[in-house]
């Protein structure tokens, strides 16, 4: 039990105080197929009072699991199987449930990824705020309510006096995430675990939440573990960063030092991930665009979602359609494919108008336009073998059979950099996310298309995997003279792949042009907001941006 005082004594330095949390050789096991498998392999972690530690890694790195272990908590189907978790003189790995319950909420608090799911739909927000302080005997209900309103105001929530009396579903996502941060703060804990708090949000909302979190953590000198997969986000938030991979620590260091001089190759790759940039190709003069959207308006039932949308996709070029959720970019793709016939306007293919409904389009038209989806999990039939997934368009469109078909499937697999012998007889469920997306690309290529619509094809993937997919798509474009319409919300992806950019907001095209121009000011206001909201690796980026935006952000009152 003397562990804390010993370790705390000699090592404290600078403005940071004593050691608050220390994990030693933490091991966590997860249950899969009736047996326990280790998913975190002996990780050490130290956190001082008031320090913000970033835990970063791709999916499966074990970062969220470690974050929760800091509260002595393991999810259903997981267990802490070894090591020590010392928090203020208590080993949470061995502490009784009652001891842990006293600490949770009062001295260690948690902010979940999805605020919409983590608030109880049956209670008012302020009741949920007050629950922990009243329960732990920190504040009376009356004082807790007053404190809540004060905190809501500090987090720049609109109508701080009354917003707490709403129910969770009556408040927007970005606000809800700030309400949850307020709730975590309610007992003024020593430590808050943030578990991907901004991942589910749009970029422009993400900034507001990041700013709020950074601000509040500083004000109360709260220590934090900030779990995320996005190095640029963590660069803004953390004093120190731990890079995780496959349940092991890869590298640990001060934020600036690590960003400037990563020691491990893996960290370097993560840092370089946003640097991929394709050189912009100019639109060929006078040529008919392969795909043209002409004054398209569309509605779901009676709700109009697209208003007079027009743009071109030139031959052998990539057009990125950018916008936040609800901007109508995916709906545009549905109109182009013929799944949602437009109420006005039409689609032209090589100058010819296409029938509005895909069922009226000839087979050869369907063949020449292929689609790749955001979620490779749902885009591949889990009961089909890769042979059948890629083989079907070959026999359906091109009439290939037997040996010819087999040879072509193997060619396509080689093309997407998967070893044919290893993969041809696998089921889709036996592949990783990136491999599945490659199979989807092969399936689209099998039809020998002229244009491929890519709907957020990299956003469900880890960054390094996503980069591989982007490189593959660029290579294939050169090899087969493909045209892409590339839907994305991520401007780093735009930089990586686009020749031209179309910015959409609320179902309208707000700006369109060559990529070079789009990344140079002056812009339409919205384009400007969107572009400036994309986090950069520079740790000072957020502070600088907030200073620049100044009152402007508060005036928007989001």
């Amino acid at each position, binding site marked *: 039990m003397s562990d804390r005082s010993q370790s705390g004594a000699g090592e404290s330095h600078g403005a940071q105080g004593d050691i608050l949390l220390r994990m030693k050789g933490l091991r966590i096991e997860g249950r899969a197929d*009736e047996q326990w498998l280790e998913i975190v392999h002996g990780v050490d972690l130290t956190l001082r009072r008031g320090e913000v530690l970033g835990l970063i890694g791709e999916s499966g790195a074990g970062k969220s699991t470690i974050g929760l272990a800091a509260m002595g908590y393991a999810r259903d189907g997981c267990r802490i199987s070894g090591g020590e978790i010392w928090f203020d003189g208590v080993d949470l790995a061995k502490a009784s449930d009652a001891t842990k319950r006293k600490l949770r909420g009062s001295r260690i608090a948690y902010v979940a990824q999805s605020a919409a799911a983590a608030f109880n739909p049956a209670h008012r927000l302020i009741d949920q705020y007050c629950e922990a302080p009243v329960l732990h005997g920190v504040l009376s209900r009356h004082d807790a309510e007053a404190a809540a309103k004060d905190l809501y105001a500090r987090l720049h929530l609109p109508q701080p006096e009354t917003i707490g009396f709403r129910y969770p579903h009556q408040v927007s996502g970005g606000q809800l995430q700030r309400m949850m941060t307020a709730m975590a703060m309610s007992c003024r804990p020593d430590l808050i675990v943030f578990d991907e708090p901004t991942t589910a949000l749009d970029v422009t909302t993400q900034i507001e939440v990041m700013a709020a979190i950074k601000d509040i953590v500083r004000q109360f000198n709260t220590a934090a573990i900030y779990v995320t997969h996005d190095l640029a986000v963590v660069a803004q938030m953390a004093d120190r960063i731990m890079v995780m991979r496959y349940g092991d620590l890869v590298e640990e260091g001060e934020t600036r030092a690590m960003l400037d001089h990563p020691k491990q190759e893996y960290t370097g790759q993560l840092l370089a991930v946003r640097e991929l940039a394709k050189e912009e190709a100019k639109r060929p003069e006078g040529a008919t665009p392969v795909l043209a959207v002409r004054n398209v308006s569309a509605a779901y039932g009676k709700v109009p979602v697209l208003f007079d949308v027009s743009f071109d996709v030139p031959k052998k070029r990539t057009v990125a359609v950018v916008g936040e959720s609800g901007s109508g970019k995916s709906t545009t793709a549905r109109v182009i*494919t013929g*799944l949602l016939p437009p109420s006005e306007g039409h689609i032209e293919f090589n100058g010819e108008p296409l029938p509005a409904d895909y069922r009226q389009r000839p*087979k050869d038209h369907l063949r020449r336009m292929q689609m790749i989806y955001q979620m490779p999990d*749902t*885009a*591949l*039939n889990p009961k089909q073998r890769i042979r059948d997934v890629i083989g079907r368009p070959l026999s*359906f469109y091109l009439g290939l059979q037997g040996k010819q078909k087999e040879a072509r499937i193997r060619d396509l697999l080689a093309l997407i950099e998967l070893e044919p012998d290893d993969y041809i007889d696998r089921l889709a469920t036996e592949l990783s996310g990136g491999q599945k997306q490659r199979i989807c690309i092969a*399936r689209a290529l099998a039809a020998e298309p002229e244009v491929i619509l890519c709907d957020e094809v990299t956003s469900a993937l880890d960054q390094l995997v996503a980069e591989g997919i982007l490189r593959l798509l660029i290579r294939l474009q050169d090899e087969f003279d493909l045209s892409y319409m590339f839907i994305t919300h991520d401007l780093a992806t735009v930089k990586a792949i686009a020749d031209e950019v179309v910015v959409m907001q609320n179902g309208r095209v707000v700006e369109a042009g060559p990529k070079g121009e789009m990344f140079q000011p002056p812009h339409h206001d919205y384009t400007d907001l969107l572009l400036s909201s994309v986090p950069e690796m520079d740790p000072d980026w957020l502070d600088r941006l907030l200073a620049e935006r100044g009152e402007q952000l508060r005036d928007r009152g989001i």
Partner: protein
Amino acid sequence: MATATHNAWKLFKTAPPTAWFGLIVVSIYVIVALLAPFFAPYGETEIVDVAGLGVGDSEKFLLGTDHIGRDVLSRIIYGARNTVGIAFVTTLVTFLIGAVAGLLAAVLGGWVDQILSRIVDTLMAIPPLIFALLILTIVGTSVLNMIIVIAILDSTRVFRLARAVGMNVVVMDYVEVAKLRGEGLWWIIRYEVLPNISAPLAAEFGLRFCFVFLFIASLSFLGLGLQPPTADWGSMVREMSTLITFGLPTPLFPAAAVALLTVSVNFVVDWFLHKTSGLKT
């Protein structure tokens, strides 16, 4: 195919005792039903002892004889053939109607779905036993009528399930891929939807069988199902029910035969559901 057998064996090895029990009992029922004349000591309607013996009174009649002197064991064995056979056929018909309609509703959507769903809603708003009694009053009680009535009434539940699981698959992007490729309705149902819903449908088949089987037994018990002198478990209970007031447990045997089979099928289905869908029931 060796791996398939191997996998099946691996699956069975992890099965809980209840599932093993269920599998073994169901197999015994099937064998007995198929080879009834071979197992039964006496004929189905053969009157062997008019005295009406109780259980254990005679070595010749293991489970005693019924109120008019037929061997109860023989009648239970023949009953397996009649009761289980008819329930199985009825379940098949139920499934054929329900699954086809449900999948069509899921894949086609629109007005086809609307019309079918409204019909099913209405049918389901009336309690099935009451509805069956009403219809059987009109069309008269016969085996064929009973099969048709129960199949139609119960297919509503298969429809609901097939439609629901079908819908879950239809919204998947891979189905959209197939549609945009220009595939026909049959291909989409056969290759994209069906393989992904076979597990819940198989489990539902087991559950529907139990329901249909109990339903027929109840109807027979009420005197509105299989008619005498056919050996049938439900009507056997009804015919012999007076014996119980004389302290004879005889009517409990055919009733237990019904219960044992349903329990066993339920055990197997429960395990299967748990295995295939991770459903924590």
